[in-house]
């Protein structure tokens, strides 16, 4: 693989070797004015992740630009590690993976296979498509639960699932996201903290602004206590920055709307999601709550929640025979005024 290609995928082994070959040390990257641009780009990566949910396309058409781009990746990781915020980590990992997805869609089959192998996806070629063992498919699709991604809706035969290029690249995105997330936070020293002092400050304040703007203040303690355990869990997942799969967001959105929350209030809650992009979230919420298509979707019942793995095992109230729907739980609690 030539470096022009590898620079697009900075998590690859090649890139690590490239840096080593140039005898570049950490202190060079952090302090040497020569690599000022790499540090600025590293900060840009994190800022883009925070603001847009994806790392944007950067220019690296010259060899010099390539080097700066390559070095910006470890800088970004160190920056995120210094700040050590759960939400930021997940958001950043996701943003890098989204950029990988956008790029890989245009790559050749050979390159896709090569990168997939390196990420631990045992994939092989099958005619115009690809095949993957179902155990690997399950592992890398766990964040994509629901609907199309369920193996019951897949071409499974003799242990292997046939995938088209787009779906494979989506799994690769997941593999990248999981990989980056698991590597953070890196161990950082006081020296690194000092070197990146101003960048850390800038990102931290952006993070604060974001968190304040979308603070779910209308979700008082009283209301959330009336939620069934499944919904409480979904809210908790979002608030802690965990990536909630589509089915979960759908269930929560339709539930919150059904109990009388406004679209704005619902938006506030979702703003904690690592892949939160305001426009898209507004669109999704409006769609589910009937503003766009005039179909208001009713929240799923308990058996559906179980199928999608969203039921966390109920409490005593859940186990009552007539309790078959999250809304029934909420209404029961309302009546009792607990």
């Amino acid at each position, binding site marked *: 693989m030539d470096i022009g290609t590898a620079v697009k995928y900075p998590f690859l082994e090649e890139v690590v070797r490239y840096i080593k070959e140039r005898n570049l040390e950490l202190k060079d990257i952090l302090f040497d004015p020569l690599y000022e641009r790499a540090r600025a780009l590293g900060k840009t990566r994190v800022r883009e992740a925070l603001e847009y949910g994806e790392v944007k396309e950067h220019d690296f058409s010259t060899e010099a630009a390539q080097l700066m781009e390559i070095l910006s990746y470890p800088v970004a990781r160190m920056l995120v590690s210094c700040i050590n915020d759960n939400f930021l980590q997940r958001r950043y990992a996701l943003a890098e993976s989204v950029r990988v997805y956008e790029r890989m869609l245009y790559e050749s089959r050979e390159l896709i296979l090569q990168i997939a192998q390196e990420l631990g996806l045992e994939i092989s070629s099958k005619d115009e498509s690809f095949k993957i063992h179902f*155990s690997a498919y399950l592992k890398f699709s766990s964040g994509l639960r629901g*609907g199309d991604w*369920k193996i*019951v809706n897949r071409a499974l035969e003799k242990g292997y699932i046939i995938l088209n290029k787009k779906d494979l690249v989506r799994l690769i995105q997941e593999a990248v996201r999981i990989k980056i997330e698991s590597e953070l936070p890196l161990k950082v020293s006081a020296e690194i903290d000092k070197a990146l002092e101003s960048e850390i400050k800038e990102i931290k304040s952006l993070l604060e602004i974001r968190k304040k703007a979308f603070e779910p203040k209308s979700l008082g303690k009283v209301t959330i206590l009336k939620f069934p355990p499944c919904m409480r869990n979904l809210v908790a997942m979002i608030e802690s920055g965990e990536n909630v799969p589509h089915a979960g967001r759908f269930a929560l959105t339709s539930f919150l709307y059904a109990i009388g929350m406004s679209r704005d209030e619902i938006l506030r809650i979702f703003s904690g999601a690592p892949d939160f992009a305001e426009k898209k979230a507004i669109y999704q919420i409006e769609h589910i709550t009937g503003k766009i298509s005039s179909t208001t979707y009713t929240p799923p019942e308990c058996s559906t929640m179980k199928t999608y793995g969203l039921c966390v095992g109920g409490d005593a109230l859940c186990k009552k025979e007539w309790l078959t729907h999250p809304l029934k739980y909420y209404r029961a609690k309302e009546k009792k005024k607990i």
Partner: protein
Amino acid sequence: MLDPETIKYLKQKFSDYYKEANLQHPARFGRREFGFMFFDRDGMIRHLSFNTRDEIKNFLIENAPAHVYHSSAYYEKPDIPEMDDKIWLGADLIFDLDADHVERAKNLAYAEMLAVVKEETMKLIENFLISDFGFDEKYIKVNFSGGRGYHIHVTDPKAQSLNAYERREILDYITGTGIDYEKVFGKEAYDVLQTGLRRITKRTMRMPKGDAKGWEGKIGRAIIDFITSMETMPREKIISRFQSYGIRKKTAEGIYGDLFEGAVGKRGAEKIKTGKIDIFSKESNLNEFLKIIQNQIKISIGGETDEPVTSDTKRLIRLQTSLHGKTGLKVVGMKIDELKKFEPLRDAVAFSNEPTKIKILKLSSFSLKNEKFDLNEGETELPEFAAVFALCRGLGVKI
């Protein structure tokens, strides 16, 4: 709880059995948690582990438990009571087919019920585990539970580290949960009308191809097979067959009409064979028809618990070659080809023919070892295996 005299007798019998039995141990049994239930006390004793085969054997001989279980998982420290502290290392993939959850087995006599569950078990293995999931036969073991069904243990290394969500996905696959029918019957344009400048594309649903992979192929094949099997049946029989699947008479008649009425060559059933599925006059007819088809294919497995056996990565399951305390029958372990010839009420009997006196408390009858036992209240003499069975089921007491 059973009376003291009966308990004493059963404990002696079970103990004798364990003295002579050729116990089979699960792989890496030193890493498994064991659990036991007893005749003379309530509840279960858990979090036990054993280092040698002799230790297990001696425990069984000394304590004569009514039920013996081990974890599907293996742990770093199996005997620590806190589940999280045991440190999970992996688990076999388990399926529990119980007569209570197999629709067709309900309301049948014991022997027939077991036969239906056995069929379902073989269907699960052949149509799903081997053909779709590609598990090698050497990794698949079946245990007769000693009671009302069978357990399948898959020991394929690829399945060992699957987590609960992933196992749930496998379970959903075999039960056909979450099928996207729009995808199965993909909408396809079949006609384009051009009237002036307007183009109207008519779309229809198409039949899934029988050689497609996954559920698409299963549904395609099942529809054709189902229709073919009905073709030579008289109308009344077909309609009552639909009703036996829980369909209302009016809908059953509607489905019949859609499939088999009309001019020969133009009937719904024939159109289906050419690839069309858009032959139903009402959506409800189509939906009910699809329900039947899905029921033919899927495995009836499931229960009312929140955590089905398959997705529970910390489940306790019966030990092969142990005895079932409610029947006195053996938990028989076998490979797939042995399952074909297996007859539980003959091959799972653990005790002898020795005449044994017991007192029957209520009118009852059962079949074991190809012998029918019709019992009236009062004292009687039965072969040992039948006496043990009757006592375990609480049909009588030891005298």
